[in-house]
């Protein structure tokens, strides 16, 4: 088992080392930190009461931890999920007697090492930023690193564990897995707010997976609680925040160790519940729903059908084909019809439009991903329509879908705003999906980014 684990770790690390994305990941963390840090009212504001905390070494460490929770958790997920280690030769590997637990733990170890390397890069960047920002107050390298690693390392280990777990089951390997991760990530940031105002204990800290709530509220002067992260309005002046008191508060360090241990346990569990990729054989007749969702029998073949002629409006033809392929499958049509009907009845901006975009986030990323697969691109490049023309048609078709779904709302209350919103959101989503899929060659990156953007659109006033 140890040999398998060691081999799994070594081969995964070797493949990570040869991936250019790793260098990008190591760069994104410090650059993101520079632009997200709450420096004199710019960046992401962390307010205690209505004031900014004084920039001290431990507070800088916690702020960098917040950068990890808000920015790096989805980006690192993107990297781990789409990196080369995921493309394992599973057809061969799955028929070996090697322990799946050992393989899972080996890959988990490699993921953790990569994420901790990113954290180390962020720590060095934090020291440099601290040297610029913290003086004349006491500047302490160890306190920056201690606060950052205590907050972020268990969260990153949890991310690595989820990556291994989500690779273990067929359903979680799919787009549903990405959606579930997105939900878990949002929950990990939002749920700790429930403990705001409570005295810290092991139990309350265990709710705080991201790990930044206690350090922010426990060291605040006066009553615990009342802090805001994001676009808060702040008053002049600074508040004294004793972050070290929060980090050393009852149950906090124990909870961080507990999360690290849970991450290791999840990785081992992933090995135990691992299910092979091999195609499942259906037993018995397919159900009614499966039959209904299937495309049905093919039309009768006409043996002497002539060669297809060129379309008279070839570009329009291409847009039409993209439109059909974005909305392929009866399940999509059923959901689309429901949204279209709902758009006539509910608030368009806050209900119907987000629902349409959520459906299209999956449909657009799926079609963009399949069209941009490297092996397929080599074939489609030989067609008269260049890949860029197809991408333009894809964007037009995306805008067409959101417009179609908004039609009942437009019929009920014709408004340029509604039309503009429908066309604009569809075109923007398609453009993002197409650009990210062409860079990554898969549906995964556009799906996750569209989900994150969708959440922003849905929650915006």
């Amino acid at each position: 088992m140890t040999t398998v684990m060691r081999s799994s770790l070594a081969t995964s690390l070797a493949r990570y080392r040869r991936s250019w994305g790793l260098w990008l990941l190591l760069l994104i963390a410090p650059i993101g930190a520079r632009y997200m840090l709450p420096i004199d009212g710019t960046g992401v504001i962390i307010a205690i009461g209505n004031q900014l905390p004084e920039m001290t070494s431990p507070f800088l460490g916690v702020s960098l931890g917040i950068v990890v929770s808000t920015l790096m958790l989805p980006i690192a997920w993107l990297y781990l999920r789409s990196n080369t280690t995921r493309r394992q030769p599973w057809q061969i590997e799955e028929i070996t007697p090697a322990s799946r637990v050992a393989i899972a733990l080996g890959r988990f170890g490699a993921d953790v090492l990569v994420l901790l390397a990113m954290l180390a890069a962020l720590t060095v960047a934090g020291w440099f930023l601290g040297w610029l920002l913290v003086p004349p107050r006491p500047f302490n390298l160890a306190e920056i690193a201690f606060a950052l690693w205590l907050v972020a390392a268990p969260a990153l280990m949890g991310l690595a564990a989820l990556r291994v777990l989500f690779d273990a089951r067929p359903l979680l390997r799919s787009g549903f897995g990405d959606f579930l991760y997105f939900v878990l990530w949002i929950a990990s940031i939002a749920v700790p707010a429930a403990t705001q105002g409570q005295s810290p204990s092991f139990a309350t800290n265990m709710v705080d997976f991201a790990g930044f709530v206690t350090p922010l509220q426990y060291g605040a002067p006066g009553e615990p609680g009342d802090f805001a992260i994001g676009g808060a309005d702040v008053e002049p002046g600074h508040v004294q925040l004793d972050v070290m008191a929060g980090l050393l508060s009852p149950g906090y360090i124990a909870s961080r160790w507990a999360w690290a241990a849970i991450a290791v346990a999840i990785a081992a569990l992933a090995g135990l519940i691992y299910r092979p990729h091999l195609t499942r054989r259906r037993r018995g007749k397919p159900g009614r729903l499966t039959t209904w969702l299937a495309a049905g029998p093919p039309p009768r073949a006409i043996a002497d059908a002539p060669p297809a002629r060129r379309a008279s409006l070839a570009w329009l033809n291409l847009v039409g084909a993209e439109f059909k392929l974005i909305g392929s499958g009866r399940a999509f049509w059923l959901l689309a019809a429901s949204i279209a009907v709902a758009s006539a009845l509910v608030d368009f901006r806050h209900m119907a439009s987000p629902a349409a975009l959520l459906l299209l986030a999956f449909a657009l990323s799926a079609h963009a991903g399949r069209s941009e697969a490297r092996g397929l691109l080599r074939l489609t490049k030989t067609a008269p329509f260049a890949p860029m023309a197809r991408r333009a048609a894809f964007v037009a078709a995306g805008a067409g879908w959101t417009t179609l779904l908004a039609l009942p709302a437009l019929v009920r209350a014709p408004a340029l705003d509604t039309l503009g919103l429908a066309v604009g959101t569809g075109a923007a989503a398609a453009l993002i999906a197409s650009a990210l899929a062409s860079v990554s060659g898969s549906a995964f990156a556009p799906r996750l980014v569209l989900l994150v953007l969708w959440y922003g659109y849905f929650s915006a006033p």
Partner: protein
Amino acid sequence: MVSACASDAGAAGIPYQELEAGVVKSGGDVSLELRGISKNYGRKSVLAEVSHTFTPGLTLLTGPSGAGKSTLLRMIATVEKPTRGDILWNGARLPAARGKLRTTLGYAPQAVDLPEDLTAREFAMHMAALKGLSLRAADKQFGAITDAIGLHADINNRIASFSGGMRRRLIFAQALLGARRVLALDEPTAELDAETARKLGALLLERARDAIVVMTTHLADELAPSAIAVLRVEAGMVAHSS
């Protein structure tokens, strides 16, 4: 290294001679000329000074694995550019004439990342749209092609459920969509059983009446009697046999 190639028919295998008596050749008004083309990958030379003019009919590319057959086919299919030399379509140089060539080109590579979640028919319509074809007419033609090669019953099934041979037939079928004058096919008969390979060969020979059909194949002995030329590629060099 240059080696000669015999175009004698193999004794065993598929009786193409029964399908087509003699060489399939017809008068055609198209030509694809390779003029002294070479291909290097870094310092490694894959093809050197290859010259040949393709005219309508079947041309086979034979030779050992890694000899440069697929590289030559990719250059014919406009996927890759030669390091040196020219490719001319009806007398006009590529890349200037590439657009015109692509309007009439069908290409079937050895392996494609097929979109697993689409049905074969949806994928074919995607390719037809990119080729600028009428989707309704292309759907009918796809039905006829797949019927001829024994894939029709499965065209509404998802590609994820396809076997290796079915995938190969699908890649072949999309190459034939439209009125193609140039077909570049990389091992279209690999992974196929003898009966299916025979059907596919028959369809190809029919197309070769007015189209340039260039294919790499491990069934050269069986197809050679029907070919207008067999090019043996070995160590980056090409020997002709017509």
